[in-house]
């Protein structure tokens, strides 16, 4: 390995545990890479250079002293700038919170700290996590490291772009309508949102109470399994966090998917899909079939209702949270965001409550349609090829770009309404050299199953190992 910044989470942790590398050397390698390339990609909001080196030195000292090492000891990470850390500014990608200094540290960050991960700072993101493309009017747009004029996907734009560019081994993102899986797919990395409530949300900026999720973006499914094992589980402060015991997701990555039954819904996910996306998706299915899985196309008529309801829940909850600022400081938002939030005030309360009230029934119906005879639902993560920043920029031209902008998250949103654990893994490059993603969803609390299939796929492909030409 010529560059320590290229190490995956598990490889970095393993090399550190064996004494083959110091945490300080890994952090310095990542810092050097950021210094060399981030001027083009624009992933970083705050780089905690000295704090990261001090944390790395502490891990090196602990190892030298024979202290038991955590699962992520020495692994360099950065996180979307909406995970609160006491005393550190958390901008949430906004002008409104440019000076917001929280008095709490996110539970997910506390767990990563305890596992020995090195937090190097905070990452660019869509303003208040509210767009699927990664545009940011206040900190500048994040650029796709595979091809700079193209969008990164959002809202966890810096998380996806930075992991792809090998600026750090992993990053936390958040996912309310696809904000982990979209940048994972578009930047060619792996991302997972867990079952709704699987990871506590204490100390995390809210967007939509009902559908927000915390999760990692990494290079491999094995890395994602390692991080999810660390951050999942009940929390004394977040009463919504699921109390179910957390398995060791990594231990389940056997690669054995013989007999696995994969369902592909006829509906929704292929509406107006680009041919090259469908071709890549079908090729990914062939890889899984060669490992012993079977694939069936199934009818899921519930998806039409799910598609209508999911749009209502996030828009109403987002508009509610932002009401005071929308009254008092509407000009402090980017044009696309204040415009999007504004629409939420027009939705009747009865629509919102209908959407929430039918969530349980529709989850049961979808499971009956998709999972009664199957273990995994597979779809493309995006229906379209990766768009450019310009052709999805609503601030410049809402009339021309609105529909394309909103279509980016069409295939990811349903799984937020359903609350299902869902992974995106890279499954190809399009004709312009931009990544495409395979989305794998499992039953509730089936994170281990989804990750196991993702890992099996990555054992037979190398899309996840490819690096953007930026490097």
């Amino acid at each position, binding site marked *: 390995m010529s560059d320590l910044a290229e190490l995956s989470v598990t490889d970095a942790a393993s090399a550190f545990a064996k004494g083959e590398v110091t945490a300080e050397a890994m952090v310095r390698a990542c810092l050097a890479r950021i210094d060399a390339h981030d001027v083009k990609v624009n992933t970083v909001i705050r780089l905690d250079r000295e704090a990261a080196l001090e944390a790395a030195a502490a891990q090196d000292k602990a190892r030298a002293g024979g202290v038991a090492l955590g699962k992520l000891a020495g692994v360099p990470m950065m996180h979307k700038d909406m995970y609160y850390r006491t005393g550190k500014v958390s901008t949430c990608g906004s002008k409104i919170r440019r000076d917001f200094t929280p008095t709490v540290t996110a539970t997910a960050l506390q767990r990563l700290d305890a596992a020995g991960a090195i937090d190097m700072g905070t990452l660019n993101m869509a303003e208040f996590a509210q767009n699927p493309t990664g545009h940011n009017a206040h900190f500048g747009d994040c650029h796709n490291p595979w091809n700079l004029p193209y969008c990164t996907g959002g809202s966890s734009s810096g998380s996806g772009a930075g992991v792809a560019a090998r600026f750090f081994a992993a990053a936390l993102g958040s996912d309310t309508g696809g904000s982990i899986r979209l940048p994972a797919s578009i930047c060619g990395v792996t991302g997972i949102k867990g079952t709704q409530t699987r990871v506590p949300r204490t100390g995390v900026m809210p967007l939509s109470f009902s559908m927000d999720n915390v999760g990692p973006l990494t290079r491999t499914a094995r890395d994602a399994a390692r991080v999810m094992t660390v951050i999942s589980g009940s929390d004394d402060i977040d009463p919504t966090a699921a109390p179910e015991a957390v398995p060791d997701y990594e231990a389940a990555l056997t690669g054995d998917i013989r007999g696995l039954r994969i369902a592909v819904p006829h509906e929704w996910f292929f509406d107006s899909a680009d041919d090259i996306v469908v071709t890549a998706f079908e090729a990914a299915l062939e890889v899984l079939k060669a490992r012993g899985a079977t694939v069936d196309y199934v009818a899921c008529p519930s998806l039409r209702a799910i598609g209508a309801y999911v749009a209502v829940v996030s828009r109403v909850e987002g508009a509610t949270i932002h009401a005071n600022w929308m009254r008092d400081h509407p000009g402090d938002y980017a044009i696309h965001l204040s415009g999007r939030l504004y629409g939420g005030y027009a939705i009747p309360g009865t*629509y919102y409550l209908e959407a929430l009230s039918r969530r349980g029934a529709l989850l049961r119906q979808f499971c009956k349609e998709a999972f009664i005879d199957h273990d995994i639902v597979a779809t493309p993560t995006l229906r379209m090829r990766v768009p450019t920043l310009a052709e999805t920029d609503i601030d410049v031209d809402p009339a021309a770009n609105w529909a394309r902008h909103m279509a980016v998250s069409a295939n990811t949103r349903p799984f937020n309404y359903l609350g299902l654990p869902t992974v995106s893994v890279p499954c190809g490059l399009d004709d312009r050299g931009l990544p495409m993603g395979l989305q794998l969803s499992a039953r509730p609390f089936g994170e281990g199953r989804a990750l196991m299939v993702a890992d099996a796929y990555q054992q037979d492909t190398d899309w996840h190992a490819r690096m953007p030409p930026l490097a």
Partner: protein
Amino acid sequence: MASEPVPPVMEAIRLWTGVECPNAAGLRSLDDFTALIQEFEALRGTLVFEDEPSSFEAALRAEAEPGA
């Protein structure tokens, strides 16, 4: 040009929330609701009298991955 229902909706928002339409993107966002209303029209009659939001957490557990 905003579609016909938009001006009264803007007035309702102002009355109920005190929020003014911020820009053209706000108008575009309201125009989206013509399609959303049609989608909800198609769903009329599907909400069951006893349905309640809290059943979602129960459904998550009822439909959980075996052995998880």
